[in-house]
């Protein structure tokens, strides 16, 4: 047994270079049993790189690691693979989703660690066990459900269940809450607190400082691959962290005046999507208006956005600027519809393409002459957009899969910002984007709306919905549960509608400052 406060992991002088360029340097870190360590930093600061090294996904370029053995003695290790790390009691939830979708939930959870006798699967034990872990993360699904039928948030929870089921001494989570809505995220924080109380160590990355403030015992701040400080609980607040992250504190946006009289651009009547068929949906968005779709995981927001863009088939009527919107996605994009998908890795980026190609793809046809790409204009617009989106490193010829997750997201949004679409559909627009860049992206979205475009976005972060939306449509179980103006919209009101009129949950996200202490520290 490990004792509380005992050191489980120690890193010395850890560094990692990609093609000679350092992504991480001189990291000194020690992790103790019974603590929650948060790692924060801007996009591309090296957080994921550090976590990948700790969990054996990639080897460090230099430096050493020591892990406590069963007797609690630190021993030097060189993790060659994930397998080694698992054996050493370390489990990781990746930033990008990574499931073999041809397996069922139980199969995914126990992949690589299947209960077996002489190599033969014990399916019964596997399913029973899987149910246990699903219940733990609050995912109310049959463990035999195939993974390719799951929504992205559900997949994220399956990954968490998978990591929990390793019963590792050190659990590492890379932006685990980024695709979860308030209730699930909340539950996950509770689980992390539980693990801490059981004497395990939890390391997690988040761009939501409120989460960090609420639960972390220590906070490690990374900036440009360097550690700019490790703060003990009680010695920091939001402002001091931000200062260490970006060198200044971040301004939040001011509320903006909304024009109530503008013409309706998008009108959706009796929309029925492919999966939720019970409740037809109708609503409208005016020119210059930013409408937020709120709801719990699986409420059907993604489905609405994808139906409007004709990614998935739908019944019902969609109208843009008074004319019916029909045809396939390409035809609708030509009409000025733009969509930023929720599943970035699968539907957003061209991993093997460079940033410039990724960002220009959607609009190269608009400034082409005789369908010939105007490369000079392309280069100019791309670098301008990279700048506006704060995409780092600012190299247009860089391959997108070598960017950090948040920067990949910026490349996907930046793709559309350059052309000012008539209707911008965003699904989790700032997933994985750091605080300062998020403010910048929000400003861009507002600027776009100010120029007369309509914006419809879905977000699981209430904070984002409240900050950005002029009007909030709350969805529940595939239908519209209610609409709130910016004035009416509060966390409590939204959660009330989102849960189908049940009493609002006690701890919606974004109210961390007040409730943080409830979890206490293990000291």
């Amino acid at each position, binding site marked *: 047994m490990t004792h509380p406060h005992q050191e489980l992991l120690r890193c010395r002088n850890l560094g990692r270079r990609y093609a000679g360029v350092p992504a991480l340097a001189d990291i000194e870190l020690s992790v103790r049993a019974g603590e929650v360590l948060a790692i924060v930093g801007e996009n591309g600061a090296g957080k994921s790189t550090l976590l990948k090294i700790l969990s054996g*996904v990639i080897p460090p370029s230099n430096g050493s690691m020591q892990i406590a053995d069963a007797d609690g003695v630190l021993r030097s290790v060189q993790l060659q*693979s*994930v*397998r080694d790390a*698992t054996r050493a009691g370390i489990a*990781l939830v*990746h930033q990008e989703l*990574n*499931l*073999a*979708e*041809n*397996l069922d939930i139980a*199969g995914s959870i126990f*992949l*690589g*660690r*299947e209960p*077996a006798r002489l*190599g*033969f*699967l014990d399916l019964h034990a596997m399913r029973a066990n899987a149910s246990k872990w699903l219940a733990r993360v609050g995912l109310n699904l049959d463990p035999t459900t195939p993974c390719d039928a799951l929504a992205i948030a559900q997949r994220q929870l399956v990954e968490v269940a*998978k990591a929990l089921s390793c019963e590792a001494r050190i659990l590492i989570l890379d932006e685990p809450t980024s695709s979860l809505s308030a209730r699930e995220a909340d539950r996950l924080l509770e689980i992390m607190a539980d693990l801490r109380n059981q004497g395990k160590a939890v390391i997690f990355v988040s761009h939501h400082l409120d989460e960090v403030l609420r639960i972390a015992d220590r906070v490690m701040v990374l900036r440009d691959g360097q550690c700019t400080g490790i703060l003990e609980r009680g010695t920091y607040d939001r402002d001091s962290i931000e200062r260490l992250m970006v060198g200044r504190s971040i301004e939040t946006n001011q509320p903006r005046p909304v024009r109530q009289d503008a013409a309706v651009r998008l009108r959706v009547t009796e929309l*029925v999507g492919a999966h939720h*068929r019970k409740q037809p949906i109708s609503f409208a968005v005016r020119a210059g208006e930013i409408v937020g779709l709120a709801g719990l995981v699986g409420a059907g927001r993604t489905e609405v956005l994808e139906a409007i863009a004709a990614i998935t088939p739908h*019944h019902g009527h969609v109208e843009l600027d008074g004319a019916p919107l029909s045809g396939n996605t390409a035809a609708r994009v030509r009409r000025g519809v733009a969509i930023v998908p929720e599943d970035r890795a699968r539907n957003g980026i061209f991993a093997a393409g460079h940033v410039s190609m990724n960002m220009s793809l959607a609009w190269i046809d608009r400034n082409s002459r005789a369908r010939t790409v105007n490369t000079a204009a392309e280069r100019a617009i791309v670098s301008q957009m990279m700048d506006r989106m704060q995409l780092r490193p600012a190299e247009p010829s860089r391959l997108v899969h070598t960017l950090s997750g948040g920067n990949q997201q910026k490349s996907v949004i930046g793709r559309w910002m350059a052309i000012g679409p008539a209707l911008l559909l965003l699904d989790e627009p700032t997933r994985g984007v750091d605080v300062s860049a998020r403010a910048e992206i929000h400003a861009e979205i507002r600027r776009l709306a100010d120029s007369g475009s309509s914006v419809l976005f879905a977000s699981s972060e209430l904070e984002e919905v409240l900050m950005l939306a002029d009007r909030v449509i709350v969805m529940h179980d595939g239908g519209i549960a209610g609409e709130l103006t910016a004035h009416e919209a509060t966390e409590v009101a939204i959660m009330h509608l989102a849960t189908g009129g049940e009493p609002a949950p006690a701890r919606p996200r974004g109210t961390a400052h007040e409730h943080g202490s409830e979890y206490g520290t293990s000291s």
Partner: protein
Amino acid sequence: MKKSLGILGIFLAVCVVASVFGQNFLTGYNLMNLTQRTSLFAIISLGAGLVIITGGIDLSIGSVVCLAGITTPWLLVEHGWSPWVVIPVVLIGSALIGLFHGVLITRLRLQPFLVTLCGLLLYRGVARWMTSDQSQGFQGEFAGVRSIALAKFPIPGLDTYQLPATVIPLIVLSVAIAVFLHRTVWGRWLLATGRNESAARYSGVPTAWLITMAYVACSLLAGVGGMLFIFDIGSAQPSDFGNFYELYAIAAAVLGGCSLRGGEASVFGIVIGAATLQVLRTAIILLGLSSQLEFAVIGAVLLIGVTTDELIRRYSVRRSERKIA
């Protein structure tokens, strides 16, 4: 299972047409022949299926069939080796070929298509060079060894149908592979690797090893197939023996529900896929069609079959949707 319903439908349709319009389709002798040929082709198709599960492809199957098939009588007859030595040597050789492919694909990360295309050229070339383009046969001897493929077991109650011995390896292999895929840890791992290699690797699955083993199994089964083919046929010419068999094998696997994107397979489907191809070829003769039409008929039937299957599937999905709505 659901995936193989389509091919089962095509198979049954072809059988019905052949028995209604063809001469003597439903005779014991014909069914016996069909069983024999299906067994031989299904064995190599199973190998193709295993590789396809990993998202790879093996184009060298036909050439390995050729090399293994040619080497067997070459060693037995020309060099006078004992069958007890020849069979293990040929099988081990085939497995080594697969190992070679697997290593190049997983360690050097070369494209499977390229590696096995080179294999396609190389092994046939070696077979031709080794035998100086001379056809190899058993010259009427070695009836004992050949009975591995030629023996027929009378079935009580059935008059003219006798069970060909090659069914035994087919059944054993099918069951073993099906159990392997769906009941063992490694089968799971293989399926997961095929669908999302990095997810499997991050879960601690030894993906490189599994992929290598899939190629080993594929070449080994091609070697087994080659040997059974030559035992059955009696002689072969290195320049044409096994030509295009990789396409038949891959076609059987794909018809049987394997996706070339990897991660999906149905052993039952593969066997039915292989059977369909054989029944089609026989049906053309029994229906009295010109053998010039063979290719055209097989191509057209398969195309119509898979298209119909897909249309039916869509229609039924749409109907069930409408019902719920």
